[in-house]
Structure formats: structure tokens, C-alpha cells
């Protein structure tokens, strides 16, 4: 140990730019040895107020102005001041170069933790996970956000803040329904966007008029009552449909819809990979900093402080604890990756039985494969092991409003593993979490009203916001909007909310 003493980078809790640079150099080298593939890093040191700014703009480094971000800021500020919450140690942006914000309040061990976590963990996940590769374009996002910000503020000057705010309000209400789930969106680039935007404006207007003008040519409504459905297939991307088809919408409003839609799409992968992304980053800060310690770069004191924060991050209160608020994604993700490594390195007979392909394989390759090719839902479905289910003592509760009691449907035993795994996976499936609502039909001949179809899942009804969201949609559409609820088997549901 003594021979390594000279390696120690620093032994106080104070940080400085030079120290950050030296820690980063070592962390970077270790990450490289482990085969992490990352975008170049840009580390930005900020103070707590700037961190709250970053919070309130949901992690967009520059966003258009909207009251809801102000609300978010006030909320965060209030809670932070009262001491009800600490601020995150870091925020990281999926961009190229990958921007990570470090708080000035952090001690040196914390800064090192954050560098390992964000600049190498999250960063490599952003760069290599298939969802991010498919749906986001890290090179262009900053430019696009800048374009969006300028465009919105131009609109405000031309049309007034209230008008713009109203459109954005409505779009935000539908933001989660502004993503393509299956289609691959074309890449976005700011220059092309602003270049094409004018063109699109004019072109769209002619297209729309065309759509409506075709209707009354032949009056033979009785012949084809069924065929006339528009869109011919139900459309899941409500904002996309509005942008392309809303009859009387001015073109600048269409562009606003598009902006919100694009941003929603950019965040879509993050919403689907929370467990994996945090788990991956946590696994790597843990592994990298331990390596740093083994190589003698950091002191025992450093490790104690690091382990204390690490433990805080991955704490999972039990279901009956007053602090319990659902499953901690950090805990689940971190433990799954750690467990995966264990299965590779020291497989038990049970592991060999459950994971014949990976038991005993090279752990780095296996983890890399898992990181690249899955999202939360499939990751859990594929890799949650019986051993981890036992460790976390997971159990499944069935809540059926037709029963007068809750039922424990499975626990951590032989007969329950598969059920727990399936239910947990489903819990992270966005399409199960959000109600299935699609645009079903437009009444082209009559009042131009828009019909939405909600397909029930597990008989779960819509929440009480529904009618308000529908009003937002009809504000964008310009004509009445109806929502009908369909049972899972396709039959009409009578007591649909309105």
C-alpha cells in the first residue's frame, strides 16, 4: 500500500479545476480500460440557483419561455429553501459533446462520483443504447433548442404572449401523446429546420385546403358509410395528427405543435430507460471509483464519503416504511447490473438454469450487450434473476376494484419468480402506464369533430383531468373533440367518462 501512496490525487474535500481535471483524467482512463464508449465531455460548474434553473427547464440547457417552467422553478426553490429536498448532484444532457452540470457545493469526492456517474456512465448509455440512437440526435439537439427558443419568441412578438401561451398549454397537455412509438423520425438539424420551415408553412396550407375541398364532390354518403373513416388507420401521435391535419390552424401554430412534439420525442427514450440508465451510471461510478481506490489514487476518507452517498442513492425503503414511494430505479438498476456481473463471474446452478446463455460469459461483453439493446421493460423481462427477487424481497399485489380485498399474487418463491418479473416489466412499459388513446375518426361530412378512442387496459378508467385535456385538444383542432372508451375485447364501453 505504501508504494502507492504517491498516487493519491488529493486528500482534502476541497475541489479545484486542476483537481477535477486530474480526477477526470484517471476516471477517463479507467472507463476506457473497461471499454466504455462515450461522447466527448463538457463539464460545467454551476451554483445552486443555476441548478434550480436546470431543474425547471426539465434538463434542457436552453428552453423557450413558458409559465410552467416558472412554476417549476418556484416549486423547486421553495422546497429547497425549506430544506425539504436536496438538489441533485448533477444533471446531464444527452448531447454531443455531453454536457454535465456539477454543483459548486459538492466536495471533491462528490465531484469525482458525479464525473464517473454522469460523464462516463450516462454518457456511454446515451451514445450506445439503441433507443437513444434511434430516436435522438445528440449532435443537433442544442441547435434545435436554440431554433425553438427563437421561433417561440418571434411568435410572441408577432401574435402576443397570451396566444402563444395558450397553444403551448394545449400542446404540453398532450406532450406524452406527441411521440412516434414505432416510426423512425428523420434526423433533425437546426439549419434545415428553419430553412424548410417556411416552405412547409406554405405547402401545408395548400395541402389542408385540398383535403377538405375533396369532400363534397360526390354526394353519395349512403353508398360507403364505413369507408369514409379518416385517418384510415388510428393515429397514436395526437400532436402529429394535429400538426398535419388541423383544418383551420395557422401555420405558426403548426410549427409550435411541431416544436413541442420534437422535444417530447427527444425525451421519449429517457422516459423508457430510467432504471437502466440510472442503474448503468450507478454501476459504473461504483466500479470506477473502487478501481480508483484499488490503484491507490484516493484515500480511505474519500471512499467513506463516496460510499455514504452511494448508499443513500441506492436506498430502497420497504413497502411499509413511511419513506416508501415506489421502487427506487437506482436500486433496481444498480442491483440488476451488479447481479448480471455476478451471474457472469460466479454463476450458481440456478443462474445456469435461468440464464444458460450468459452464465459464465465475459461480464463486460454481457453488460455492454444489455446496455445497448434493451429498454427498462425488456431489460427486466430478460435479466431480473430469482436471486435478486429474493434479495429485494419483491412481491406482487393484485388490486381489483371488483374484489373487496387486495390479493398477494406472488412472492419471492419458485412459483412466483416469473409472475413478479412479468408484472415488474409491465410496470415499466410506457404503453401500459399511459392510457391507450388514439385518434380514430374525423367527421369529414358533418361538424368536423374529432373522435378519440380509449382502449381500456385492466378496466382502468381515465383520470379526472381527461375532460380538460380534451378541451385542450379541441382548442388545437378548432372543432369539437369526443372521446369514447372501448373495452379490451373491442366492445363499446357504456359508462365512459366525458
Amino acid at each position, binding site marked *: 500500500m505504501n508504494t502507492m501512496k504517491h498516487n493519491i490525487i488529493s486528500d482534502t474535500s476541497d475541489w479545484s479545476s486542476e483537481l477535477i481535471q486530474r480526477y477526470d483524467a484517471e476516471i477517463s482512463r479507467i472507463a476506457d480500460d473497461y471499454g466504455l464508449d462515450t461522447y466527448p465531455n463538457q463539464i460545467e*460548474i454551476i451554483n445552486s440557483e443555476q441548478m434550480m434553473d436546470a431543474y425547471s427547464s426539465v434538463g434542457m440547457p436552453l428552453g423557450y419561455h413558458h409559465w*410552467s417552467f*416558472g412554476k417549476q422553478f418556484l416549486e423547486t426553490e421553495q422546497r429547497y429553501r425549506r430544506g425539504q429536498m436536496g438538489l441533485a448532484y448533477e444533471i446531464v444532457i444527452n448531447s454531443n459533446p455531453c454536457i454535465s452540470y456539477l454543483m459548486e457545493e459538492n466536495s471533491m469526492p462528490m465531484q469525482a462520483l458525479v464525473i464517473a456517474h454522469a460523464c462516463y456512465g450516462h454518457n456511454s448509455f446515451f451514445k450506445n443504447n439503441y433507443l437513444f440512437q434511434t430516436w435522438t440526435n445528440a449532435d443537433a439537439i442544442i441547435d434545435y433548442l436554440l431554433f425553438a427558443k427563437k421561433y417561440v419568441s418571434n411568435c410572441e412578438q408577432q401574435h402576443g404572449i397570451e396566444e402563444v401561451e395558450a397553444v403551448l398549454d394545449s400542446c404540453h397537455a398532450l406532450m406524452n401523446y406527441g411521440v412516434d412509438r414505432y416510426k423512425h423520425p428523420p434526423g433533425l438539424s437546426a439549419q434545415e429546420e428553419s430553412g424548410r420551415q417556411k416552405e412547409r408553412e406554405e405547402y401545408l396550407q395548400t395541402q389542408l385546403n385540398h383535403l377538405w375541398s375533396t369532400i363534397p364532390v360526390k354526394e353519395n354518403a349512403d353508398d360507403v358509410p364505413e369507408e369514409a373513416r379518416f385517418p384510415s388507420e388510428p393515429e397514436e401521435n395526437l400532436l402529429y395528427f394535429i400538426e398535419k391535419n388541423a383544418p383551420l390552424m395557422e401555420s405558426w401554430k403548426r410549427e409550435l405543435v411541431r416544436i413541442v412534439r420534437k422535444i417530447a420525442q427527444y425525451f421519449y427514450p429517457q422516459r423508457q430507460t430510467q432504471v437502466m440508465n440510472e442503474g448503468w451510471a450507478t454501476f459504473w461510478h461504483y466500479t470506477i471509483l473502487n478501481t480508483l481506490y484499488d490503484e491507490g489514487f484516493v484515500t480511505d476518507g474519500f471512499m467513506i464519503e463516496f460510499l455514504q452517498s452511494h448508499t443513500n442513492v441506492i436506498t430502497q425503503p420497504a413497502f411499509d416504511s413511511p419513506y416508501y414511494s415506489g421502487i427506487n430505479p437506482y436500486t433496481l438498476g444498480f442491483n440488476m447490473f451488479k447481479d448480471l456481473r455476478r451471474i457472469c463471474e460466479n454463476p450458481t446452478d440456478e443462474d445456469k438454469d435461468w440464464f444458460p446463455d450468459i452464465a459464465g460469459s465475459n461480464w463486460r461483453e454481457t453488460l455492454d450487450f444489455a446496455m445497448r439493446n434493451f429498454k427498462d421493460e425488456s431489460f427486466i423481462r430478460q435479466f431480473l434473476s430469482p436471486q435478486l427477487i429474493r434479495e429485494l424481497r419483491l412481491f406482487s399485489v393484485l388490486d381489483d376494484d371488483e374484489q373487496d380485498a387486495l390479493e398477494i399474487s406472488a*412472492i419471492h418463491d419458485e412459483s412466483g419468480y416469473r409472475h413478479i418479473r412479468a408484472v415488474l416489466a409491465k410496470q415499466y412499459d410506457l404503453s401500459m402506464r399511459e392510457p391507450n*388513446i388514439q385518434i380514430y375518426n374525423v367527421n369529414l361530412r358533418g361538424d368536423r369533430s374529432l373522435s378519440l378512442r380509449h382502449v381500456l387496459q385492466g378496466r382502468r378508467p381515465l383520470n379526472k383531468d381527461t375532460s380538460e385535456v380534451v378541451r385542450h385538444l379541441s382548442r388545437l383542432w378548432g372543432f369539437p373533440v369526443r372521446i369514447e372508451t372501448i373495452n379490451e375485447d373491442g366492445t363499446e364501453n357504456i359508462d365512459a367518462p366525458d
Partner: protein
Amino acid sequence: MTQIIDRRINGKHKSAVNRQRFLRRFRQQIKKAVSDAIDSRSITEVDHGEKINIPSKDTHEPVFGHGPGGRRDAIHPGNKEFVSGDRIARPPNSGGGGGSEASNQGEGEDEFAFQLSREEFLAFFFEGLELPDLVKTQLTKVTNFKSVRAGYSTTGVPSNIDIVRSLTGALARRIALRAPYSAELKEVQEELSALQNKDEHTTRVKELEEEIRRLEDKITTIPFVDTFDLRYRNRIQKPAPTTQAVMFCLMDVSGSMDEIRKEMAKRFFILLYLFLTKTYENIQVVFIRHHTTAKEVNEEDFFYSRETGGTVVSSALELMLKIIKERFPTSDWNIYAAQASDGDNWDGDSPNCRNLLNDNIMPLLQYFAYVEIMPHNHQSLWRHYEGVKIQNRNFDMQSIDTINEIYPVFRKLFARKPA
């Protein structure tokens, strides 16, 4: 290659615009909250920010989601004694056992609370009062500071060097540093002269001469002025005006002054107070309420206790005069008075009031403002006060029916002190 950027220096208040948007959007709710706050605040405390609560249903942003009910399976950690097939009673408040739902915004709290800054608070307060912009900025402005000499410091800019002080210090230092060498020099010189007298030991003489030269060198190399000696004139920031004022609030509390009138009167007093805080460092407020007799009371009683009976305004004026004579000599105090009333007075008393003001009170005062709030019709008091107004330039009166008519009363006050 990692790039490290320190962003702390730039980009403060990046959310300021979004904050303004938020205030704008909830203007009605905030205005009401501010108005409530003014009613419950003491006059002297009006100059602060305020915690504002807005019903969170107003700030809620709706999204599609699942409501409670239906059939759902959820996974929880930390099983202790359950086995599959166990049935447990449904917890009282859970529609759907899952903890993953309904965590969207700050639900569970009925109010959205945040802090309004002092500037924002006053902006909302001024809104109804229709103040000109210049006046608004003057009132919102924080106290001016002026820099005052405060001794000497060892650091500063060259233009602030105090030469005499620095050179005195240098002299002292030179003497102090020279002392050991001088003493030694004296000894050596004495020994040398002794030797020279005896005329012997030439090598020792040489040594001593060498020593003397060395010591003299030492003494001359002590610097004349060292950076250590420099003294700079030190200046500190002190609030500029240190004068004091007393503000008399006079109000009729007879039965005809109802809550609405009192509320308006309160705004009138607040405004006067704010004006005065800008000019005077130390302000005392004296509350005098009266019906047929007058009494000095605290603010709480002034606004909120009710009495009935007739009205004799002169009783209040007499009490004010008495208090001025006893506690506020005009040599030390600037005296302001504001009177609010609905105009009722016992007819025979009004001439008294006029004489009291003209002869005794007005000469002592900086300014007297009288507002008549929602009068039924002007009575004798108004007419007699008009007489006072003609004779005294520092007297002003106004009849107000709505809140935006308060400000003109102060116009004159401001015309005299353009800043």
C-alpha cells in the same frame, strides 16, 4: 478530451422571464393574495415580500392518465410475512395500490405556495393605486448609501493613500529597525575612539572600522518607505439620510366608518408611510382614533376595534398637538399627519378645527393630508378645511370614492421633493 467550464459567474436569474410569465398568468390570484396580505399586515411592515398561496387546481397542468379503479398488479419490495394467496384489507385512501401512479406534480398539497419578492409585492400593491412610473420606482428603490470616512486601512487604491499617515508610519518603522544597529554602532564607535586614544592594535582598529561601515550600510539600506507603511483612507457605506420623522394617523372611528372605508383608509396610510420611508431613516407612527373623544392606540385597535357615538374632530387634533409638544420637538422631528374620515363632524366643532389647524398645528407640520372616504355629501368640516387649504401650502385634501383616487393627495408632497 474533457472540457471544464465554470458557469458560476454568468447566467444568473436565467429563469427570471419564466417567473414573470408565471406571475402574469396568475395575476388575479396573486393580486387577491396581496390584497389580503395588506389587510392583515401592519403599516410599517408593508415593505416586505410575501408568501403567496394559489389553489393548486389553478396551477395544475392536466395530462391523460389512469384514474383509480380497475384491475392492476403492482410490485413492491421488502416483503416480510406475506405468502401468495394472502388477502389483505384495502388501505383506506388507496384507489389503486400502486405507488408509481399519481406522482406527477405537487399533488397532495392543496395550495401552490411561493415567495413574492419585495419589489414584486409593491408592484402589485401599487397597481390599484395608479401611481406614475417615476413614483413607483422611487418607492421601490432601496435606501441610498453614501460613503463616509472610517479610519485607515492597509489596502486600497493609490489615489486614497494618506501621505502624512504613511510617512509617519515609515518613520516609526525606520527608527524601530535601526535601533539594534544604532546601539551596536555606538558601542563599536566608543571602543574605536578608546583605541584611537591609546594609539595601538591597528588590526583591531581596522576590524572596528570595517564593522562601523557594515553597520552604517545596514542602517542606510533600511528602506525609506515600504509597502508595509502605506495607509489608505478607508471609506464605508452608510445609509444616506439619517433624519427622522413622525407620522400621525388620525381616523374617525364613529359608527359610520365601516370596514370598506377603513380598508381604504389603511391603504392611504400605507402609501404615506412608504413615501416617508424613502425620505427618512427613522419613522415613528402614532395612531390616534377619535369619536367624541380622542385616544392614542396601537395599530391593531386603530383599524379593528369599533366604537359608536358622535364625532368631534377637534379632540383628535388637540391630542395630536399635545403629543407633538410632549414628545416630538420640531427641531428633531419632521412631522407628517394624515387624517381619514367620512366627513361627519359635529357642526359647532368644525370652526374649532380650522382655527386649531391654522393657528397651532400647521406651522409645526411638514404636511397634512386629509381624505374624505366615500362621503355622503360634504359637510361643514370639508368647507372649513377648504379654508385651511387656502391659507396653508402644506395642506392637501381629497375626497375619494375608489382606491385609485388616493394618489393625487400625494402629488403635492412629491412635487416639492423631486428626486
